[in-house]
């Protein structure tokens, strides 16, 4: 058997052990009674960089092309907003009548402006939509707005991406690339950005002037306009195809960044497949909420148009409402005026993660961003989940409201 001695005598070692509490107490008693700090510098810096929410005021609203408006958001006192990586978005809180919803908008201004407390977002009007016409018709200069901290992962990452980025933008999908173009102009980032920008007609191009200006000011930014409904000199005609991407990719290694409507992503999936790129070189912005679950693989076709009972459990309370099979559970919860957290509204970020207590649901594979264990334990992201029966869910509260 081992018989260890560290001091001269084993007995003294034992005595020393007996004294460890005394030694500790001595250390405690020798320590000052100085009040403990309420504020820790590192934690404060983290809060500045990753705020849960930020309060801003609408400083200006600028018409941008025929159907988009750029909204200038500023802090009331000029204090700084969280810095972001060009391409990131904020989730904007939008109260409409009795409901409170959110939308994610890419930050389309230079990250440098955030230091002066300024963010720009651009809202394109979709007349069939709920939020964009409301914002365009009702938001006014001077109005207070609550936004999240910067979120999202469509940004240039030098440790991962090719130094040449071919950006594929459709319509208001130009916004994250505006942020990137400004960041390049302001020397905050360093890569080569070629934007293939799809619009219907030359008149409808959002940001044309600003893009021209940035291209002039910065040799790292190039823009190729691709018009689907018009043939015009100096413009490419048709859709963004594999051939077009190849033409402007410069031959070497490149990363594709995409942002645009779902129809564009679906079309581009086929085109990009032809290029034989590794996945690491193809990055896409949030898919957005799926509006036609019945067109997605695996959807039980008889569910379309049906209406179900939805029970929501929240902090010891219960709410009952209706849920349409055609809309996400998040929308049903928001319609009922119940607070619910959300950010990306595309199934990805997990901010709305909630517990499915009972009921059948449909989750399109394309927007199923859940953790593996969450699938086992019946957790869902309500923003990308559609009811197929009466459903009970436990939803936590928003931290933006």
């Amino acid at each position, binding site marked *: 058997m081992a018989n260890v001695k560290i001091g001269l005598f084993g007995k003294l070692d034992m005595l020393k052990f007996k004294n460890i509490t005394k030694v500790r107490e001595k250390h405690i008693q020798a320590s000052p009674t100085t009040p403990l700090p309420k504020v820790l510098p590192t934690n404060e810096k983290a809060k500045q960089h990753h705020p849960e929410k930020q309060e801003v005021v609408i400083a200006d609203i600028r018409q941008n092309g025929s159907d988009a408006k750029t909204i200038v958001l500023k802090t009331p006192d000029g204090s700084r907003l969280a810095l972001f990586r060009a391409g990131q978005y904020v989730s904007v809180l939008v109260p409409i009548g009795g409901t409170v919803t959110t939308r994610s908008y890419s930050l389309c201004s230079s990250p440098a402006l955030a230091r002066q407390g300024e963010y720009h977002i651009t809202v394109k009007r979709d007349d069939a939509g709920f939020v964009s016409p409301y914002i365009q018709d009702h938001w006014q200069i001077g109005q207070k707005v609550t936004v999240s901290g910067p979120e999202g992962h469509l940004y240039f990452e030098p440790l991962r991406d090719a130094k040449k980025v071919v950006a594929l933008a459709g319509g208001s999908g130009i916004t994250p690339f505006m942020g990137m173009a400004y960041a390049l102009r302001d020397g905050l980032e360093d890569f080569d950005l070629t934007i293939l920008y799809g619009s219907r007609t030359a008149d409808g191009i959002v940001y044309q002037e600003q893009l021209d200006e940035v291209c002039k000011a910065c040799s790292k930014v190039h823009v190729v306009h691709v018009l689907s409904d018009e043939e015009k000199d100096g413009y490419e005609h048709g859709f963004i195809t594999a051939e077009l991407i190849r033409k402007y990719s410069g031959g070497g290694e490149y990363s594709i960044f995409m942002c645009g409507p779902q129809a564009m992503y679906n079309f581009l999936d086929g085109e990009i497949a032809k290029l034989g790129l590794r996945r*690491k070189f193809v990055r896409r912005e949030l898919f957005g909420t799926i509006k036609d679950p019945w067109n997605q693989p695996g959807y039980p076709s008889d569910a379309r148009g049906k209406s179900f009972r939805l029970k929501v459990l929240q902090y010891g309370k219960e709410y009952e409402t209706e849920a349409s099979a055609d809309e996400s559970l998040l929308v049903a919860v928001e319609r009922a005026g119940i607070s619910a957290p959300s950010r990306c509204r595309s199934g990805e970020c997990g901010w709305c993660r909630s517990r499915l207590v009972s009921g059948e649901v449909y989750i399109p594979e394309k927007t199923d961003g859940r953790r593996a264990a969450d699938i086992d334990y019946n957790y869902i992201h309500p923003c990308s989940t559609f009811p197929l029966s009466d459903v009970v869910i436990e939803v936590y509260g928003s931290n933006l409201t």
Partner: protein
Amino acid sequence: MPRYDAVVIGAGNGGLAAACRMALAGKKTLLVERHNLPGGCASSFRRGRFEFETALHELCEWGTPENSGNCRNTVVEEYGVPLKGCIVPENFRVITTASDGKTHIDAILPCGVEAFTDRMEELVPGCRKSVEDFFEIGKECLDAGNYSLSVNGKTDNKYMMEHFPNFLKVGSYSVNKVFKALKMPALAQDIMNTYWGYLAIDADRLSYLQYSNMVNLYVRHGAWIPDKTSHELTTGMLERFRAMGGDAWFDCTAEQILFDDNKAVCGVQTNRGVIETKHVLCNGNPSMVYAAMVPPEVIPERMIKLANARKHCARMFVVYLGLDKSAEELGLTDYSIFMPDSADSVKEYASGKTLETNNNMVSVCYNTVNKNFSPPGTCVLSLTTLYMEDAWADVEEEDYVATKNRIARRMIDKFEKTLGVEITPYIEEIEVATPWTMCRFVNTPQGSAYGYELNDWDSMMARMRMMGTENQVKGLKFVGAASIRGDGYNSAIFSGSTMAKLTLADMKKEEEG
């Protein structure tokens, strides 16, 4: 106003273990958590087609049903959490320079006392006796700990002297002191010290008992990881808690702990309303809780002194990599590799204080143990380091991304150079977490993950022996890394379970009047 027998603040491993213990005893318990998911540090996140493990390298004190460690006993056998996972076959690989400054060390140490000892003898001929002594004394120390637990800390001195003399003799010393007394060759000490980073205190000050326990538990039970990341473990605990009748509120921030006229806990004020309770088990850090969540008049002076005497431990920095080649294709075969510049932990601790000098690193490739950890043809690799001082307080927001990328680049370069394996071209997803990230998601002081330093005077054994004097705010107990046994999943789960037992004992006393 809802009323609960107990409220658990924070759903980290400690909070979850405490909540489960309370629910298991039939107490009406509410778990509140500011984030939208359980786990605290012990979690996961998705990027593209990858799911990343946030924190876990290998669970200690786990084992198999046939050789079950105490942590597994608590979580699986007592709480009934169903879990699937993999045994990690090797304890570690270490690649470094010996403390003599010359000898190159590259060693893989297997699980199991015999295999481990044999390998040590191969690596450092002549060290066998000292390593055998290490394991023999280690067993004695584990037995002493179990005895102490079985009698609720009321140990019989004579029994201890008779059965655990070595435990008593090594109990007050540091790792380096005891290894020297065991006449362990210097090179063997260097290798045996490899795990010091898991406790983040150099071997001159690290309590031998604490270290010996950890190494013995790893070697004797083997290390283990859940198949679906820490999120499987923590969500599993959460769901068992619910199944046993517990309530859990997420996106719910505890703002104040409320006290009655007798300076006893009477409730918790949250951003979702006030909850009435007489017992709070808090997974937050005492320094921050005392400063911001408890009225000063209820805190005994000694608790403030204790908090002031302590130092926050291990500010985390992790590079998460999703690679688009499999571990086999890349030639990655080791699960965890420790790569400090030097095996001299005192030196490494010192260089770990600043951004410029810290070059310590541990890599983990999950796919070497769990083939299905990520999609076919890919693998996940994480590179972790920790800071011994509050080095990230001085970084400006403007420089944040560049700073974290510069350090990530340095770590990737070091990995590539040390292993002779190229990984940069295969990075499909990357995320870099810094102490700021830790502050954001778990709001620990300075982004630390290990609670307070397990200093020579503030080791596990000293904390546990003084457990009775640490809970001087009536109705408030702390669980997690900052609690009695320090950091590590198993220690956090132990503290949660133990503090819940003490709370149950308090409740019993109250009932008896």
